[in-house]
């Protein structure tokens, strides 16, 4: 490849980067104007799920540890925020203090879960993490007696919104003479956090630790023989992934103003796992794509009702009932046609292409080299 081509490539990359930045900057206003403020809320959730999916991606995608109870860490972060900033205990600590605390607490929980379980083989680990997630949820559900800590199934409401110095993000603010509701402000906060998480993930990926994770994923025995302390490195993956979940949980609690155990059931863990696997395990753009699709798809499927009316003249099947059915079918179809995910990394894509393709590829490379 000659130098001028690379230069122009880089220029294209810059332009694309700036364009992406602009789109991200104005996205809520475009969405709000085009589809209504309900979709801006969904946009906020998309960013939240991107953070969660990237957190789980560290555990599942990088280190190859199947975690079916990831939502437990999300719950820890959310309940910590709810308990420390709501009338429930009369505590109103500031968000900038609680959010990092939530990350720390979730990370500790991750270590706590990881320490006894990390020597288990793949699927045993899956069921233990699943059990852990259920344990946390059941405790949240029942710790309202004899001492009321979590307020049981009713959950905790009137949680302080995220804010600093008396100003809160959920108030609507004025911009160019327009009243802008708080969900827009949250969008920018979540965007900044999501970008931070993306940045950390990117930096981790090629770091010494990131390469150690991948080595463990590919062959644990070989990794150990190469001098990697597999136990500590796996624990680190658990703690790191968990702390991302903890931060997201805190943001969720502040954004929603209400948490209850119902938000943290097994289906939620499975959803986040689907985002990671469907998008392309271990590949950051793929995981982001998975998170966007799986958050938007169930919402978009709400429009089935009008579609049915258009085609059949009346609502044949309640769209709410049909929504999850289509969602399940989509999961099956996508995985059958793209088993490595929608947008897998180059390395993984090569692993799954047929041997003949790989041979052809190599011969081409040889031919290029001999020229």
């Amino acid at each position, binding site marked *: 490849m000659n130098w001028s081509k690379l230069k122009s490539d880089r220029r294209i990359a810059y332009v694309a980067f700036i364009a992406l930045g602009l789109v991200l900057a104005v996205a809520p206003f475009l969405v709000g104007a085009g589809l209504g403020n309900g979709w801006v809320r969904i946009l906020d959730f998309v960013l939240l799920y991107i953070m969660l999916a990237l957190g789980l991606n560290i555990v*599942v995608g990088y280190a190859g540890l*199947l975690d079916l109870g990831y939502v437990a860490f999300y719950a820890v972060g959310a309940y910590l925020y709810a308990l420390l900033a709501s009338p429930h205990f009369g505590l109103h600590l500031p968000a900038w203090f609680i959010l990092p605390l939530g990350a720390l607490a979730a990370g500790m929980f991750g270590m706590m879960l990881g320490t*006894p*379980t990390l*020597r*288990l*083989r*793949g*699927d*045993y680990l*899956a*069921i*233990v993490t*699943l*059990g*852990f997630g*259920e*344990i946390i949820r*059941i*405790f949240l*559900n*029942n710790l309202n*007696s*004899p001492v009321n800590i979590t307020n049981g199934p009713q959950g905790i409401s009137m949680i302080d919104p995220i804010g600093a110095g008396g100003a809160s993000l959920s108030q609507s603010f004025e911009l160019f003479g327009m009243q802008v509701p708080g969900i827009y402000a949250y969008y920018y906060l979540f965007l900044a956090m999501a970008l931070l998480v993306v940045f950390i993930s990117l930096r981790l990926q090629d770091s010494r630790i990131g390469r150690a994770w991948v080595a463990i994923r590919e062959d644990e025995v070989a990794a150990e023989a190469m001098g990697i302390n597999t136990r500590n490195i796996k624990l680190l993956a658990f703690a790191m992934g968990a702390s991302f979940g903890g931060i997201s949980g805190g943001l969720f609690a502040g954004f929603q103003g209400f948490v209850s155990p119902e938000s943290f059931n*097994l289906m939620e863990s*499975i959803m986040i*796992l*689907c985002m990671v*696997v*469907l998008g392309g*395990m271990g590949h950051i753009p793929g995981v982001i794509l998975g998170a966007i699709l799986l958050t938007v798809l169930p919402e978009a499927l709400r429009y089935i009702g009008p579609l049915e009316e258009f085609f059949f003249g009346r609502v044949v*099947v309640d769209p709410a*009932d*049909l929504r*999850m*059915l289509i*969602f*399940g*079918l*989509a*999961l*099956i179809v996508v*995985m*059958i046609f793209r*088993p*490595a995910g929608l947008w897998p990394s180059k390395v993984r894509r090569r692993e*799954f292409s047929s041997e003949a393709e790989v041979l052809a590829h190599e011969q081409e490379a040889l031919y290029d080299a001999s020229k």
Partner: protein
Amino acid sequence: MDIFLQQLINGLVLGSVYALIALGYTMVYGILELINFAHGEVVMIGAMVTLAVVNMLMASGVDLPGLMIVAAGLLVAVAVCMALGFVIERIAYRPLRRAPRLAPLITAIGVSIVLQNVAMLIWGRQYISFPPILPSTRHDIAGAGITDLQIFIFVLALVLMAGLVLLVQRTRIGRAMRATAQAPEIAGLMGVNVNAVISFTFILGSALAAIAGVMVSAYYGIAHYYMGFLLGLKAFTAAVLGGIGNIAGAMLGGLLLGVIESMAAGYIGDLTGGFLGSHYQDVFAFFVLIGVLVFRPSGLLGERVAERP
């Protein structure tokens, strides 16, 4: 009334149902190393189909003894679930046999969601009650009660398990199953039709699941489109507890989990001085699971084997 004996009886009955479902998980896992997440939904479909047939027969005014009506429903349900098991494997798992391990897990979750929602579309969101047509005489044993239904469930489950062991250990297809579980490729070279064996395993597991579904819905008196989820989770826990891939382990794990659960429900309040109520019984089951796995990482009867490449 003797609480200990009563909870032991309840636990064994419940546990025998868990064991039947766990067998489906463990057989599939032994051969494919796949967690068949949709298995719990097959249990649910079995219960729903039986109830539909039973209610239809009752409504048509057929004059048959209750046991016969349920048996008729059960036969239909077993047939439906066998077909379902076959189709699930064909559509969702076979195309992905060479794919990375997590891919079939996601399709399994997809199948599970689809089956749940199909059931909801057909039978609605409400609980369907099981008509009281089965004999439910109560017998007294040493201060504890046991009903005809409980005896029937327990005995039938034991007979089915014994039959399964005979099938796997003594017949030609059973030997093919064991060979495939050990080394699919070598089994294929030895003339075993691996695809047929895998299909057979799914069909067999689904038949057991259908029967278990009928047992559960008759035992609790209700069925619901969402019932498969928790049942599947518990049965899978039982399979892991016993050592997944191990048939005897699934039976042991199922019975053990049933007993642990009902003992926990009976005693947890007394043991903790009323601090923890009986709604912690599910937590208890998971704590036991984690405890067992920490000390015996391959389950109670599981062998320490290297992961298959």
